[in-house]
């Protein structure tokens, strides 16, 4: 049994809007009582349509946001306690949606070094960590390039290398593929899956693409600031009506399997891949 890494209890987050005279004009509840446990080494995908609260949720795990109510405990530390801040952000790195807006330096290796430099790590060790991180994401050939010359997928991999150089236990990703083309999307997903498997790094990925989450350990669906579904991809994808009620669209293979079952074709529930569907259909002949 793996260790518990993230423990979230009754998390509420309210955005408050004030007018010029500091009078509260509006509060909106982005998170409304979220409770979730994430075990170390797992790959969790958080799904939801735009405005479902999933991005707000992710920013609580590395204390970029503070709970209005409830608690977030990351590896035994309460995110609301200020003295935990830097230790927490070192262990829970974050990748954002726009690859351009998270690269700080105009040389790739210096950008990867940015995190360790902030942590005050000695120079020789930074050099070693940067080399390791770039090698791990397959970008060592671009060590001295300018990030401006890289593709979106490559930029995101540089961002991931920047986190790796801080030796994180967990990588949070806030719609990391939303601005990428299909090639870049595959690159980034392959990289994080490898890190999850080989380096045992916990991954929490926010996305609205269901086709990206067929091979994760666990899928959490959010809607209106609440967790509405939670299970393995197989379990989640067999509840297709529920998914559409939460404004999600399943991959074509799942939809086709579902449509066929509705017509009375006896194929098993929870089909996720082309091969599975083909096999199931051929067995019927």
């Amino acid at each position: 049994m793996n260790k518990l890494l993230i423990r979230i209890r009754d998390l509420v987050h309210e955005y408050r809007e004030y007018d010029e005279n500091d009078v509260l004009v509006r509060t909106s509840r982005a998170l409304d009582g979220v409770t979730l446990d994430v075990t170390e080494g797992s790959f969790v995908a958080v799904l939801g349509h735009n405005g479902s609260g999933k991005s707000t949720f992710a920013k609580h795990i590395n204390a970029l946001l503070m709970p209005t109510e409830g608690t977030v405990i990351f590896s035994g530390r309460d995110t609301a306690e200020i003295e935990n801040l830097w230790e927490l952000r070192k262990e829970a790195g974050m990748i954002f949606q726009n690859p351009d807006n998270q690269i700080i330096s105009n040389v790739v290796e210096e950008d990867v070094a940015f995190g360790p430099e902030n942590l005050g790590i000695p120079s020789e060790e930074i050099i070693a960590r940067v080399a390791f991180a770039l090698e791990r994401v397959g970008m060592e050939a671009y060590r001295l390039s300018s990030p401006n010359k890289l593709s979106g997928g490559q930029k995101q991999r540089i961002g991931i290398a920047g986190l790796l150089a801080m030796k994180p236990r967990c990588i949070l990703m806030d719609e990391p593929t939303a601005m990428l083309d299909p090639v870049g999307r595959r690159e980034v997903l392959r990289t994080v899956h490898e890190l999850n498997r080989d380096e045992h790094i916990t991954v929490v990925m926010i996305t609205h693409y269901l086709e990206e989450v067929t091979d994760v350990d666990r899928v959490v669906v959010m809607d209106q600031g609440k967790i509405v579904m939670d299970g393995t991809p197989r379990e989640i994808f067999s509840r297709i009506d529920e998914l559409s009620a939460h404004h999600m669209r399943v991959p074509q293979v799942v939809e086709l399997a579902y449509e066929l079952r509705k017509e009375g074709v006896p194929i098993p529930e929870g089909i996720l891949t082309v091969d599975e569907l083909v096999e199931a259909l051929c067995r019927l002949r």
Partner: protein
Amino acid sequence: MIRDITLGQYYDADSIIHRLDPRVKLAFTLIYIASLYVGKSVYCYLFAAAFLCGLIALSRVPVHFMLRGLKSIVVILVISALFNIFVIDGQVLVRFWIFRITLEGLKTAGLMVVRLILLIVGSSVMTLTTTPNDLTDGLERSLGFLKVIHVPIHEISMMMSIALRFIPILVEEVNKIMKAQMARGADFDGGGLIKKAKAMVPMLIPLFVSSFRRAADLALAMEARCYHGGEGRTKMYPLKYKKEDFLAYLVLFVYLGCMIALGRLT
């Protein structure tokens, strides 16, 4: 493509000047400029010019790159030269209508033009042989003493390096915005000054909005990567003086001594 524009004007080459510590090069530039104001005789300038030629030769940067910087100041050069020629009193050489040209005027103008040229080319040596990154690094380290009087020197140099990273992105963004507005019939070149300024609004507002968003995103990303100012921060490649750097300082002081001596002698 716009993304390929080089900022500053770094010329990539492998030379002793390129390898010098940026702090040395900053000191060189400052002292060289100062030296041009110490000695004012023809000999001083000849010596300074010879010294500069030596540096350029060592730097392996083609001479026309060095002279490029002069293009932008040609107008200033001409205007101030003319001003000197006509205004300064002395032995009159030519006189026509209300103008007169004096020997002293010609002399002063000539020296001033030479001084400005040396000054511009002299600083080009630094900008052409130092990457913008090294330059900000050098500035941060050599001006570190200003922290004592609460000048946020680390923050300033961090801002400079972020600006260096984002300027090409913003240039490209301006291009995209202009195209998007031109597709809506906007006209960016026609009309007088006021019309032109007005036409800029549909370009500037999206640019500002996007810049602010980028700034907010970047701040968040930096915080998420544990950035908390310069305190306790280390560097992957900290600046370290090497043998050549000390030698360069020595050369610099010998040069300055010679300039002062030449200035006294004449």
